[in-house]
């Protein structure tokens, strides 16, 4: 049953999320609330713990303390593949594609949780398994085409041969293929020039328009992206959240300037 409070409830929430490696506290008591359809950027200096936060949410690391909630359910400590299956997709800072497979296979693997056929289906009911995979391939092509016709044209080439900007795009396509409710992008613009970044902003906008229920959590350095895309910005420094709010508000906060924006804000 959907009530007013349900829709207002965050799709993704972290409570007091903390992890320490040895003596080093990499993420320290972070509370995040990501609403449905919201786009949130996470910014902060290098080594602030942003990627670690992603790894905590996707279950790669187990938090020392605190919780991760998805749609009100506690998912802390669940295995990585379970968390992916319930609807949290992600990309990696140094893109991790399946390099020796084609672009289409990469996107198809992203659909793993949306397809069913197991080993017995494949062996004993090949027609059904085949039909399911063919249908998935069709959707994968559509996703690839929707994101970038140029990428779609190269769908049968190996992912390892792609240039950096296209690798990031393909990773986004793969993440979208799992029909997630939350998509986490780890520095999508890193290694891109201005033109690619503009294209990326366009891509994300288009996805937002096509999938209105989808929420974004984006780690970013590029200020043009941070200034235009998100509804809210969260600033992390030394593992802790130090500010949250509108980009316009955030950028003038002295603490944020001190930690991160520094000279750039002064120049602006």
């Amino acid at each position, binding site marked *: 049953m959907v009530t007013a409070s349900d829709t207002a409830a965050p799709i993704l929430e972290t409570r007091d999320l903390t992890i320490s490696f040895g003596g080093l506290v990499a993420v320290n008591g972070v509370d995040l609330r990501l609403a449905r359809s919201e786009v949130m950027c996470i910014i902060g200096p290098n080594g602030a713990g942003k*990627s670690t936060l992603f*790894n905590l949410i996707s279950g*790669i690391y187990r938090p020392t303390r605190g919780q991760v909630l998805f749609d009100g359910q506690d998912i802390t400590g669940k295995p990585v593949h379970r968390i992916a299956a319930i609807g949290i997709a992600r990309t*990696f*800072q140094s893109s991790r594609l399946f390099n020796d497979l084609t672009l289409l296979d990469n996107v198809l693997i992203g659909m793993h949780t949306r397809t069913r056929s197991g080993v017995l289906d494949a062996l004993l009911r090949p027609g059904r398994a085949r039909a399911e995979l063919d249908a998935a391939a069709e959707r994968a092509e559509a996703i690839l085409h929707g994101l970038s016709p140029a990428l779609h044209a190269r769908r049968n080439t190996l992912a390892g041969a792609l240039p950096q900007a296209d690798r990031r795009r393909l990773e986004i396509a793969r993440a979208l293929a799992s029909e997630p409710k939350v998509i986490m992008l780890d520095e999508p613009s890193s290694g891109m020039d201005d033109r690619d970044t503009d294209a990326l902003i366009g891509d994300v906008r288009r996805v937002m328009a096509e999938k209105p229920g989808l929420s974004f959590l984006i780690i970013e350095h590029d200020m043009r992206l941070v200034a235009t895309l998100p509804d809210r910005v969260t600033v992390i420094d030394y593992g802790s959240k130090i500010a949250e709010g509108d980009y316009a508000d955030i950028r003038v906060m002295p603490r944020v300037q001190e930690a991160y924006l520094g000279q750039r804000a002064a120049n602006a």
Partner: protein
Amino acid sequence: MDSLLAQHLVNWMVLGSIYALVALGFSLLFGVLNVIHFSHGDVSIVAPFVALAVIQILFAGVLPAGAGWALVVALGVAIVVTGLLGILLDWLVIRRFRGAPAMMALVATVALGSVVRELIRMFYPQGSNPKPFPALIRDSVQIGGVQISAFSVLVVLVSVLMVTLLFWIMHRTPIGLRIRAVAEDRDIARLMAINPNRIFAVTFFLASAVGAIGGLFFASHAGVVRFDFGIQLGLIGFSAAVIGGLGSMHGAIIGSLLIAGIDTLVQVTVPDGASYRMVFIFLLVICVLVLKPSGMLGKPVFEKV
């Protein structure tokens, strides 16, 4: 009973020492080159064959009484030649797999081990027959009222000495510092004007020479040597290094003692133990790896994301 117990303890120490001499090579090579040199056991067992050949050349195969110096020469030559063989194999084959997937290097060195074995079998005079290997010392000594063969004492003493020497080289000499630098980060070491290939050669020499001592002791302990002894010795040495934690020299020693302990225990307590020893050794290996996936002293694999 007491002396029997002491005998078992001595046996344990002797086996543990021999296994450790081989296991150290596995661990050293893995630590520095990140490669499993599966033929290391076969390389180690080349040493007794070389020693026999030297004796053959010097004395037509029969050691005259009081020719202790000749034996020492033969052993010395065997150790050096085996060390050089290690370098040669690296240069011919193993270096071509730097940076290749681990499986490739593993399979290649498995094949390499079989090449070494076959070469001995085909080209060593009567290579397919077992060859008697002389006892290094025949005397026995009294320690605490217990009769112990001098050979056992020799094995343990030399092994302790070799381990100490290896640790000293690694931690107190410039070459050891360079080896550790290359092990830590090949590219940065190169930036510091260290030639990794020379370091690899030194590492292969050290590992193979120490393994050669293990091989010589193994042959002398058994009183016989055969071309395919290297499989078993290699498997046990590799297992010891792995359950200790690949790359850790302490781990290799602990793993060796553990395997030798099981080995001795099974032979003593299980009826018909001698034929089941490999079963127990490898069940131990499986158990340790299930409980501690990177061995006992291995660094836990921390996923870099």
